[in-house]
């Protein structure tokens, strides 16, 4: 009898030992399902916030902190940002040497390329999916508008680097631009390069659509300025128009962009360019201590006070010719230190080197925290766009001078008794030169110099600038229109996208 009881138990245990049906359904606890991004508008807003976040997170390696790092890459390639010490840190130096953008295996170049396309892919999910999501219409418009603005801005940033410059006199611009990504492709497919003309057409369309959708949207919250509103979109439109040499559109867009954004005070000007609440900032990223960006952030490379090897041993300096040309009554001279030794008051980290013409424009939160808000668009830039665009238009010099003087007046140092402000009165090329000079000293370190030279078809020349060391620069001059003005596509893109055509080597 015992045998039968045992056999029954055994058989029963075999039959009934199967697991519950849901036993094999397991889900992660540190991520959410992709479908949740479009489950409702509040999730879609979270997915938009995620894009804002990856504007300043770290990518594959140190010094790859989203747009802040890309801004530095573009400025290293100009004449105005100097690596002053022969034996100093070589962090990021291959950009300064014009090697990185021509090295298909360079990690930084791969990062820059994938960074913009990562934003585009996230934006496309929202652009193409938000319409069917349950939730308030206003939220949907806001999300879609911002996503379109992202897509436009990213394509614009890419085409400036990878395509030959846009030339209004040779329309249509049939030279190859970059892949234009409007939908997220099936896996394994690649997208060919669109022409530069087509890229700009789409950029402008996306910006116009965004303007319609964002009308009436008010940014809120502690990180409000990391969002696109109509001001930011007008500002991008102004930049795009400037690049396309559409002077009138550039000027009117710039005026629209800075509406409501007064220029900052002298005091704010020397407070470190790290605070999004500054009146003048139209667009920027907000970083909080919790995000601790360690050694990778924008400020870990461009501040004067964060304790990293890069900053201690290779503080960044201004082109000395440029600095010498700044009037002593201009506050912008004061964010660089013309002294050496004890007279140099730059707040360097412990053991940090001091050099003449040293940058102190950018300050990290402390020597131990490389946190700081990252500036992307300021009212000053919009005044400079307006001034430049008007100065290049026939018969608009008065408007150009007015815009320039608005900025210069503000930057004039407030003292008691007051020093005399000498307004600009130049005309013709001298006026253009003065505006460009102001652009260089105003926007140092904010990522405009390479694209300014390229859009204007100018050469890059460090000749005659004594604080550039030939042993470090390796490259003194690059002629206008040289093939080196075009970035190369990273090898990983070449490997996985059979449709891509490399730029001339």
């Amino acid at each position: 009898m015992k045998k039968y009881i045992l056999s029954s138990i055994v058989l029963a245990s075999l039959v009934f030992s199967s697991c519950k049906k849901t036993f094999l359904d397991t889900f992660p606890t540190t991520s959410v399902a992709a479908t949740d991004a479009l489950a409702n508008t509040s999730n879609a807003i979270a997915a938009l916030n995620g894009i804002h976040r990856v504007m300043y997170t770290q990518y594959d390696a140190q010094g790859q902190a989203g747009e802040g790092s890309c801004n530095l890459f573009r400025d290293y390639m100009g004449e105005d940002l100097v690596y002053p010490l022969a034996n100093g840190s070589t962090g990021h130096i291959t950009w300064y040497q014009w090697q990185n953008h021509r090295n298909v295996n360079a990690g930084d170049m791969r990062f820059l390329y994938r960074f913009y396309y990562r934003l585009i892919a996230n934006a496309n999910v929202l652009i193409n999916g938000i319409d069917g999501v349950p939730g308030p219409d206003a939220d949907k418009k806001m999300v879609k508008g911002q996503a379109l603005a992202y897509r436009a801005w990213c394509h614009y940033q890419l085409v400036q680097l990878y395509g030959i410059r846009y030339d209004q006199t040779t329309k249509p611009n049939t030279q190859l631009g970059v892949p234009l990504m409007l939908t997220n492709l099936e896996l394994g497919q690649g997208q060919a390069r669109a022409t530069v003309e087509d890229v700009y057409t789409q950029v402008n369309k996306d910006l116009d659509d965004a303007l319609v959708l964002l009308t009436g949207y008010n940014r809120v919250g502690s990180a409000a300025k990391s969002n696109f509103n109509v001001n930011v979109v007008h500002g991008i439109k102004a930049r795009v128009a400037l690049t396309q040499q559409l002077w009138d559109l550039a000027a009117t867009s710039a005026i629209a962009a800075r509406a409501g954004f007064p220029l900052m005070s002298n005091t704010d000007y020397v407070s470190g360019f790290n605070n999004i609440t500054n009146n003048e900032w139209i667009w920027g990223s907000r970083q909080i201590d919790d995000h601790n960006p360690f050694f990778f952030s924008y400020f870990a490379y461009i501040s004067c006070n964060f304790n990293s090897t890069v900053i201690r041993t290779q503080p960044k300096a201004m082109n000395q010719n440029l600095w010498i040309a700044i009037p002593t009554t201009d506050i912008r001279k004061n964010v660089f230190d013309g002294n050496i030794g004890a007279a140099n008051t730059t707040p360097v980290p412990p053991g940090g080197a001091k050099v003449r013409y040293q940058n102190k424009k950018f300050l990290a939160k402390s020597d131990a925290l490389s946190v700081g808000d990252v500036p992307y668009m300021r009212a000053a830039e919009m005044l400079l766009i307006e001034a430049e665009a008007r100065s290049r238009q026939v018969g608009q010099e008065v408007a150009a001078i007015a815009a320039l003087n608005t900025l210069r007046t503000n930057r004039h140092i407030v003292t008691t008794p007051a020093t005399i402000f000498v307004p600009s009165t130049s005309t013709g090329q001298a006026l253009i030169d003065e505006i460009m000079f102001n652009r260089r000293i105003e926007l140092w370190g904010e990522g405009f110099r390479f694209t300014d030279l390229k859009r204007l078809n100018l050469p890059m020349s460090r000749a005659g600038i004594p604080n550039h060391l030939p042993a470090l620069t390796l490259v003194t001059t690059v002629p206008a229109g040289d093939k080196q003005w075009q970035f190369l596509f990273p090898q990983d893109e070449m490997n996985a996208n059979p449709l891509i055509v490399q730029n001339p080597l």
Partner: protein
Amino acid sequence: MAPTDASLEEVVVIAYGTAKKETLTGSVGTIKAADIARRPLTNVMNAIEGAIPGVVTSSSNGQPGSAPAIRIRGFGSINATSQPLLVVDGVPYAGGSSNINPDDVESTTILKDAAATALFGSRGANGVIMITTKKGQKGKNNISVRVLQGSSKRGLEEYSRLNAHEYYPMMWEAQRNQMVFPTTGVGISYDSANRVASGLTTRPGIQSLLSYNPFNVANNAIVGVNGKINPAASLLWADDLDWTRDVMRTGSRKDYSINFNGGSDKSDYFMSMGYLDDKGFTMRSDLKRYSGRLNVNVTPKTWLKTGLNISGNFTTSNQASDGGSTSFVNPFFYSRNVGPIYPVFAHNMTTGDYLLNFSGNKFWDLGNMGGTLGVPNRPSGGFAGRHTLAETSLNELNFNRTVLSARNYVDITFLKDFKFTNNVSVDYQVQRDASYENTIVGDGAPGGRSSREVGSTTNVVLSQILNYNKTIRGNHKVGVLVGHESLNQMDDGQRGFRQGQTVLGITELNNFTTINAATSYLDRYRIESYLSRVTYDYKAKYFVSGSLRSDGNSRFAKESRWGTFWSVGGGWNIDKENFMNRVKVLSQLKLRSTYGVVGVADGIGFYAYQGLYNFANNANEPGIVQSQSAFLNRELTWETNKQFDIGLEFGLFKNRLTGTIEYYDRRSADLLFAVPLPLSSGALTANKNTATMYNKGIELQLTADVVRWRGITWNTNINLSTVKNRITKMPESVPEFITGTKKYAVGASIFDYWLRSFYGVDPTDGAALYVAQNTAASSTRRLIDNKTGGKDTVTTSIANGKFEFQGSSIPDLYGSFTHTLSYKGLSISALFTFQVGGKSYDNNWAALMSAGNYGGALSTEIFQRWQKPGDITNIPRMDAGRLVDHNGASTRWLVDASYLNIRSLNVSYNLPKNLVSKAKISNAQFFISAENLAFFSKRTGLDNQQAFSGVTSNAYPPARIITTGLTFNL
């Protein structure tokens, strides 16, 4: 002709049971306790190298406790795991192999073919390593003691590098040539450039770039305009240039264990305790392990048998920071690559004297003293602001781990031929990882930062197995097994990371001011299986087996998660046939063959099929962002592995010579792969079932007593293996993809290099030349006369270098031989491992061949660089402006990967019985053992065994451990 060798009666451990080796259809290799008893192994896996044909291991690094990677019969997967399954006492083991005290191990069995592994279904495709721990012997009570005491040293020499006198002129040349050969524009003359580099102009010369002048001559008199070092130059701090002196050390190793075992008719027991203290040859790298085990089996009723095997251990370990190959805290990277002119401690730059701090001690030269005390900054290449000795001394990187492992079974026999087994097994491990980075130098400075992570893994396996075994009319043996099994793994952890140290000396998080990260996770992984097996043999002469298993795996979507796996096998003991009686020389002959299909799912993420967004809050606003590698793929499913195997086992001259020759053909299909996507898609990779490939090979094992003469025995064992790996199919959507130095495409192996073809060096100007991809005329194109009288189109721009397949890292042949010479109680045994053919990509060497990284060390092979027009060489011009073109990834860095390793050597002596028996001791043995005694490769410093991919990194070199030991029984 009767089999005399006891090995035929041998019982081997197989999936869900044991089997007589005689009637086993599968391919199985065993390492016994006696084989490892005399070796100073902290991790039992290190015994596998060279022990069994068809099994290849990477070198384990010098970190105490580290395990080698193991591949059985080729490389089964690309992105999923190729590592074999580790099974301890019959159940897959969730913990690391370093948890196991090697002295507890009775046998390590390696299952190689599909029939042997199929019953492990989804997890057995890459072979199975089955560790069986010791149990008590019936009828006697023993006390066994094992004591080992030894030391460890670096087992692999450093690459040969330039000294200070050689280095300065070489870097001078790099600067000079950069001015003569600028990347754009026209260069200056040699004469002018020589003067600049020597420091005779206002422009910075080589001394400014290298920053330190280690010689007793003026800064502008170190290297003359002729490029030669000043003959009067002698070093100011010659005794302080060795960066390894204080970081490396002679390690020590203490390994003690004792066990008590015995048994009676109804029960047996085994109790052990072990203590290990293994200090590596690098500062702050050690492992201490306290282990214990209790294995009890009882038979309280005739129909009931049950047992419990519980083990626990507590491990503490300091870890050398070799995680990142080019991370500044990695002491191997740092000491290998720092220029030979920079002192470890701060010196007076004029007199060369050590500078002393207020308490009269030397202090570290951190390389960014910024001119204070006259000590300059080191340049970037010389690791300014980083200091391997300071950081290794001040930082902490350690863990402690508690492991509890239990195996319980209840066997119920009923109806005479049936046995039901219920197994419950639990592996629980909790590990606490701590790291601290100091306030003085490195990533933690100036605030100091600390992280604590506690993670646990709980692995519960339940199985219910029903066995039926019957012998019919004496000659027919039938065995049937059916069962059900579930695996439930749960991993969870929390991590805190803070910075801003308040007081020195305490590294717990409370002592820090700012939170950098506070995270947690909980992951679940589950498998459910139904399994069955049938075996049959006739007079142990003919035998067959078959198995069937169905697995569901939580890594896949509901509709794709179930896979069915099976195997069949057969064998024939030819020596039992009557007609074999005439063949006297042949003492054993067995033919066997198997075929089976097994699945692979491990090694890809737990949620591999799911499309995911990650959390990404923007400041304080909640946010999520698309994962760049997790896209929904509900079709993602099992990778399958079909293996055919045939083997012949033989013994000659009364088994004085025995051997096995085997052939296998392993086909992997639907390989799981994270396929690289165009960067322009905004994604990086997507998980897909992609390629099909095969691994084929021949394995030969021979063991012979070459000499048996007057008590002298010389035994030789030879293992030889080949593996041929080929990808045979790629999906249409992704016909090929490139990752790192490799490309996967039809016809290639998974380890075929895909690199730009380095052509050589142009004798006219020393430029590095590559075979041109685009041959159109351009400023970088050159036409070079070739040997056949034609012209080769080459380029000086590495970006235009042509990518081609460049051979494989897989060797043509690998193997081992063991010689054992014994005379009476004395025995000497040596194990050699080797490989022939294959190529290594020597990254470490490439870093030492820079054309001008100011401050970085250089290989002595740089002496062969191009110097003047007409020089015929393969080493390009030194030129600090051409690092990309002269040093980029290409075939230049490939080297023949053949090697020979004297893996282990030991000498042992059995103390005479009459001597020790007075002390009531039996089996006393004294021995001396060495691991990694010598390594021979194509280049000093090159470790070809480091990675199967052939790519070298700055890893912790293997340790040479020399130990003395004593074992005895009471």
